[in-house]
């Protein structure tokens, strides 16, 4: 009875309007079609498949064999290198990400105070961020070479005996951090836009109240730009979770051996696994040693963390979603 009633009301919608609606739906689908296909093929399928492979033993040559939770158990209990990889990645998350954001904020802050030449200096600070990561990493490994690199020569002028940088396990991650700071220009651009968006009246009001520069920064600038800072922090962490290229290239070039090809996997992490990040270890296990089931379990753990952070970001940054609202 109720069903027929609701059906009845739907029939009341004029046939022409219904036809128009159906047409509109088809138009939307037509526009979305490539993305829908791509989403299912390159995200939906591999997502389900990763879950499946993580419960199997698979080496690409013999069919996958179901092993239950063995991969996960091995990951937690019997693979000490996972712990090293997690620690290295956490180091980068805890130190490299904040260092890069603070540095970028400092640069952006300096740019807002310049009276002239803003465009020039912005380009100077941004240019290195454009350098291809492989090229930038090779350049840094050479410039920070302990024997003939220019970095230690400069330190020598000040009477400092420079460290081994990329060849010293204690200094390899700080060296990668310096490389990240050199490329802080992209974050700087985003923060600069946020700083320029802070309403001038707020500063004027603070001036009337007799606030100094530090107070203005603390009570006006920081609260206004904090959503953008939060966004930069979370994207920074997510990017660092996939930190691969710089670590791989640095270990290859600093150890003077090829890091490509199957044999290359034991070079990764040089010196002494100090640059062996989590994705690097996933790569070695999965594609250097062909433990694809185990690599899938490693991928699942990464997925959980990255997904949690993504949700956090989408929740923190509704502006990303809404845009200018419902323009049709």
């Amino acid at each position, binding site marked *: 009875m109720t069903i027929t009633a609701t059906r009845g009301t739907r029939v009341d919608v004029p046939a022409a309007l219904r036809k128009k609606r159906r047409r*509109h739906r088809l138009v*939307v689908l037509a*526009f*979305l079609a*490539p*993305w829908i296909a791509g*989403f299912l*093929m*390159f995200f939906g*399928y*591999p997502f389900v498949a*990763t879950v499946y*492979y993580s419960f199997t033993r*698979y080496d690409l040559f013999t069919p996958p064999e179901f092993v239950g939770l063995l991969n996960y158990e091995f990951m937690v209990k019997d693979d000490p290198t996972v712990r090293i990889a997690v620690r290295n990645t956490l180091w980068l998350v805890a130190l490299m990400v904040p260092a890069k954001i603070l540095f970028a904020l400092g*640069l952006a802050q300096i740019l807002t105070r310049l009276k002239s030449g803003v465009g020039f*200096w*912005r380009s*100077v600070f941004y*240019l*290195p961020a*454009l350098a*291809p*990561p*492989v*090229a930038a990493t*090779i*350049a840094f490994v050479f410039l920070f070479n302990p*024997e003939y690199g220019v970095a230690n020569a400069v330190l020598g002028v000040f009477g400092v005996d420079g460290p081994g940088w990329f060849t010293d396990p204690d200094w390899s991650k700080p060296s990668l951090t310096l490389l990240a700071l*050199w490329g802080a220009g992209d974050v700087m*651009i985003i923060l600069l*836009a946020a700083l320029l*968006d802070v309403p001038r009246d707020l500063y004027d009001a603070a001036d009337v109240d007799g606030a100094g520069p530090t107070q203005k920064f603390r009570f006006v600038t920081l609260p*206004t730009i904090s959503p953008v800072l939060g*966004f930069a922090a979370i994207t920074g962490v997510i990017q660092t*979770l*996939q930190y*691969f290229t710089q670590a791989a290239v640095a270990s290859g*070039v600093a150890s003077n*051996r*090829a*890091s*490509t090809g*199957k044999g*290359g996997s034991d070079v990764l992490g040089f010196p002494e696994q100090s640059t062996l990040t989590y*994705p690097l270890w996933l*790569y070695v296990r*999965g*594609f250097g040693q062909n433990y*694809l089931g185990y690599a899938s379990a490693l*991928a699942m753990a*990464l997925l959980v963390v*990255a*997904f949690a*952070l993504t949700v956090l*970001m*989408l929740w923190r940054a509704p502006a*990303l*979603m809404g*845009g200018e609202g419902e323009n*049709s």
Partner: protein
Amino acid sequence: MTATAVKAPTSARVRSSRNARRESFLFWVARYSLLIALGVMFLGPLLFVFLTSVMSGQQALTTDYWPNSWNWDNYAKVFTEAPMVRHLGNTMLYAGLATVFMLISSIGPAYAFSRLRWRGRNKVFVLVLVTMMLPPQVTVVPMYILWTDWGLTGSLWPLIIPNLFGDAFSIFLLRQFLLTIPKEYTDAAKVDGCNEFQVLWKVILPMARPAIAATAMFMFFYAWNDYFGPLLYTSEERDNWPLSLALASFRGQYQVDWNITMAATLLVMMPVMVVFFFAQKAFVEGVTLTGVKG
């Protein structure tokens, strides 16, 4: 009562202006010495890469940083020591096709996510953002197995073909741009009897040309810089290596001196920087749009 009320701010202003003068002088000194120091920090590495690239091979291994002789032929040697033309060709194939494919497949979805009205639009867009944010390593194992089954590992096609099916970051960036086009333009076209495809083709595309150029540029340089993807798929197949892989193993694989390596490094950096020089505005606007506007 009124007198004190007037007086207090005046004396405060006098004090603060004196402070401000002293502070502004100190700031001036600090700011410019800091700027110069920072400028050296940012451009210094590039300068030393350049200086090394024209040195002799022996001098590159010394702490003498000004070239004793200017060996411009180091740049020619880059191409004779390793098959760099072939690697460049591979990179151009990857970056060129990826960009063209992305444009074909991503403009439509971006249009649907920004200018068409439909139920659940924002919820579905969250899926685009999620695919954009998640690390590629998360889906890499099954994709590798799939491409192996299709016999395409060893080539760059596993990195090119997916761009035919919409690239999440490009859709996101294009959408952000398209949202800024005022509604009135498309409404006018619709009143004139254009359907959605005609609106996209005749109204939106011409207006969004700078945005499309910026998105294409980001895609091109993403592919140009990509190391993880090519390493995964073409590692065993040296003939199919793009520049990024060739450069990373330049010394290890081809036993090349540092001066030639630095010349190659600079050559790989050059295109991005030259394009930036000419298209600075589009670059900066694009990067700004990837951040959230407050």
